[in-house]
């Protein structure tokens, strides 16, 4: 296919690639500083406040598949993440013997439309892990560098939580947390017996307003469907749209960026993108290029941006682009709570996530693995959707009649119907989300044999867990059994053992992939400096999770937002000083 490439007349101050958490924050801060900004998004426009985009509050029967997942929406038919693990025409490959699954969203706001809104700050230790356990590397910045930005993010976007005074779980400017649900209170009781903390969750939903522009949470438990009241954080509704309303921000949708363009001196001059409308390539110019396309996609763009001045790809003179890719660890377990069978009905939706969680509570010096994990809890009388009533061929035996006799598994008829009703809301479970050790040998690179439908070479992943993550998953499984048992639940399923790496999720599955363009003080071992500026291209910046040196046992979004804000402030100041 021949491309008709045309250059644009106008030059923007900044081009931002991607409209997720990092790109959205950059668009807001940079445009508020008076800069002209172009935001390029590979998907379409999206606004949950418009009825044609709304899936919130729709009952299951409005979906012919009753909410079941599809290739495009693997988390359910009403989930607002358009894309998935396997996008038609946009392949990626894996080296043999390794595994990595890559979740992408093609829409304004990216994955922030459906994410879990768990909004945890990294703590002081999380930036200096090498000092503590000798593994991986320290960040070139510390908690004190980011704290002011976390504070601003809390106030700008809103997060509920409780002040706890735990050293490595820094408190912030919290909105009031919601009271726990019933199964969460059982878990609190059980965990207490094991001396494990269970504290109010820290999620970015507005239990109270923070301004007059966004609504408050009305407790439908459907944040993954994106909120028509803008009462939870998504980048489109809280950052990009407001930036477009106030500043000089132009949004290009359906624009698939292929490469950063550079001049003979190696400076970035803009980007080349393929319009999905006509499948033609276009160029846009700018003084500064900001990549926020997601850790792996930004790495891909940099690796595909080869020129005489950047023969290995822009920003890649160290060869580190794509290296140290790492995801959170994940493992789960579930049980059934006899006390919750035949339970009283009331509206238990709450916010779209857990009202309580367990932050990492142990000392790794006394354990056989180096890094911690937090625990997320789930259960309750959630909206019936595809999957309700499944597995009565194994689950019915947990239901007992008035004489204490268990129901027979399987069956049919009025009795089965009643048993599905009786068991509703009695299962619960938990998921561990932990820190892995970043490895040079876990990486993504360009697969020179494969291109996507835009003709852009695709990523090839190399990723294997190490003993550290496997031992951590084993510890998770022991802990899950302890909490469930102490809470009075009956364990369901077999405890995952060594043959499945203790249920450790495939790399990429937790969708916390970070580290591909890591920051550092040494240009030979890092891609970016401590301001997320490329060592070898001073007007190129990265604002997604690529700059992370290590991922912590926290979810990455709050740190992406804080870092993107800090990076944006730096860009404004460098432009003012005419340094870039």
């Amino acid at each position, binding site marked *: 296919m021949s491309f008709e490439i045309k250059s644009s007349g106008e030059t923007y101050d900044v081009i931002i690639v991607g409209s997720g958490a990092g790109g959205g924050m950059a668009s807001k801060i940079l445009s508020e500083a008076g800069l002209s900004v172009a935001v390029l998004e590979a998907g*379409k426009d999206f606004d949950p406040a418009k009825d044609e985009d*709304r899936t919130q509050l729709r009952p299951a029967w409005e979906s012919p598949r009753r909410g079941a997942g599809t290739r495009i929406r693997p988390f359910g038919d009403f989930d*607002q993440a358009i894309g998935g693990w396997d996008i038609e025409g946009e392949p990626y490959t894996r080296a043999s013997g390794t595994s990595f699954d890559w979740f992408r969203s093609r829409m304004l706001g990216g994955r922030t439309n459906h994410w879990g809104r768990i909004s945890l700050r990294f703590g002081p230790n999380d930036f200096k892990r090498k000092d503590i356990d000798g593994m991986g590397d320290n960040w070139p910045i510390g908690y004190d560098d980011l704290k002011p930005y976390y504070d601003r993010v809390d106030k700008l976007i809103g997060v509920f939580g409780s002040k706890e005074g735990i050293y490595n779980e820094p408190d912030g400017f919290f909105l*009031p947390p919601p009271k726990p649900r*019933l199964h969460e209170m059982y878990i609190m009781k059980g965990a207490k017996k094991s001396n494990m903390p269970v504290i109010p969750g820290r999620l970015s939903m507005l239990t109270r*307003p923070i301004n007059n522009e966004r609504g408050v949470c009305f407790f*439908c438990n459907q944040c993954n469907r994106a909120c028509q009241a803008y009462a939870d954080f998504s980048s489109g509704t809280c950052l990009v749209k407001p930036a477009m309303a106030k500043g000089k921000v132009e949004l290009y949708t359906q624009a698939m960026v292929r490469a950063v363009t550079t001049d003979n001196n190696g400076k970035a001059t803009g980007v080349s993108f393929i319009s999905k409308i006509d499948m033609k390539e276009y160029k846009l110019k700018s003084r500064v290029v900001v990549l926020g396309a997601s850790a792996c996609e930004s790495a891909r763009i940099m690796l595909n941006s080869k020129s005489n001045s950047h023969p290995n790809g822009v920003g890649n003179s160290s060869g580190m682009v794509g290296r140290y890719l790492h995801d959170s660890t994940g493992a789960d377990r579930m049980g059934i709570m006899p006390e919750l069978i035949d339970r009283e*009905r*009331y509206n*238990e939706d709450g916010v779209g996530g857990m009202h309580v969680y367990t932050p990492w509570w142990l000392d790794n010096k006394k354990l056989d693995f180096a890094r911690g994990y937090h625990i997320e809890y789930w259960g309750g009388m959630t909206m019936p959707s595809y999957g309700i009533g499944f597995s009565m061929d194994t689950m019915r035996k947990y239901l007992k009649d008035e004489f204490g006799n268990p129901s027979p598994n399987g069956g049919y008829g009025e009795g089965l119907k009643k048993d599905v009703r009786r068991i509703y809301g009695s299962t619960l479970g938990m998921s561990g989300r932990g820190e892995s050790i970043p490895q040079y040998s876990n990486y993504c690179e360009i697969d020179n044999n494969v291109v996507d439908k835009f003709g852009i070479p695709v990523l090839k992943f190399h990723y294997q867990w190490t003993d550290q993550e496997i031992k951590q998953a084993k510890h998770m499984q022991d802990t899950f059994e302890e909490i469930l048992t102490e809470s009075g639940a009956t364990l369901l399923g077999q405890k995952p053992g060594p043959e499945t790496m203790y249920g450790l999720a495939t790399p990429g599955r937790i969708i916390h992939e970070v580290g591909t363009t890591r920051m550092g003080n040494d240009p030979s071992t890092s891609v970016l400096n401590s301001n997320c500026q490329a060592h070898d291209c001073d007007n190129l910046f990265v604002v997604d999770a690529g700059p992370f040196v290590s991922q912590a046992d926290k979810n990455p979004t709050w740190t992406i937002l804080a870092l993107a804000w800090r990076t944006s402030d730096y860009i404004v100041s460098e432009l003012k000083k005419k340094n870039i």
Partner: protein
Amino acid sequence: MNRRENLKLLFTGSLASGLLFTSCSPEDKQADLSPKISGGTPGGRIEEEIQRDQRLLSETFFTEEERKKLEVLVDIIMPADEESGSASQAGVPDFIEFMMKDSPGYQTPMRGGMMWLDSYGNDVYGKTFLELSKKERMEVIDLIAWPDKASPEVKGAVTFFNLLRNLTATGYFTSEMGYQYLGYKGNTPNAWDGVPEEVMKKHGVELPEKYLAHYLKPEERGTVAVWDDDGNLIG
């Protein structure tokens, strides 16, 4: 935002910055995406999804004979009772028909299982499943409906019946009738203020003293949050 406004947004940036699209106008290129068959999922669908739903809704998987069998079977699994209607009254057969196309992996086990019912009927009673009397049908179903008691020779049919039970139960409980029968109270705007007092009492749980002052108070949901410098909510 209507389609024209949407397109305007799409192109504003590029036109304003001097790019020219040389191909035919965007209005000409835009396919007519309006669904012709009702029943597809609403809400922010992309073209691929609309087309797929349309295609699946226009196709028919079950033969007439199979469809009749399906209606009998789902009502055996989820019958009407004094409190609510049956699976067929709740629209479960249409849901299962759709799922056969949405998850093609279900097709062979479902079709094969239905065939088994006829083969078994022919072997034992000299009749297809639908020709059997009610009593005879239940004799056949009882062979495959109880996985812990079923004989190893009918294991394949047990697996089929498990699948049918799953889809019937899920179809039933995700229908409007199913929500009512279940007593589901959610999916409506509200102000969550915790588990009802009497329920907590019955379950012997209470809210931790430590957080009582900090939990969200519904009456404060309208007040814009203000903090002091240490992050304490002061308004």
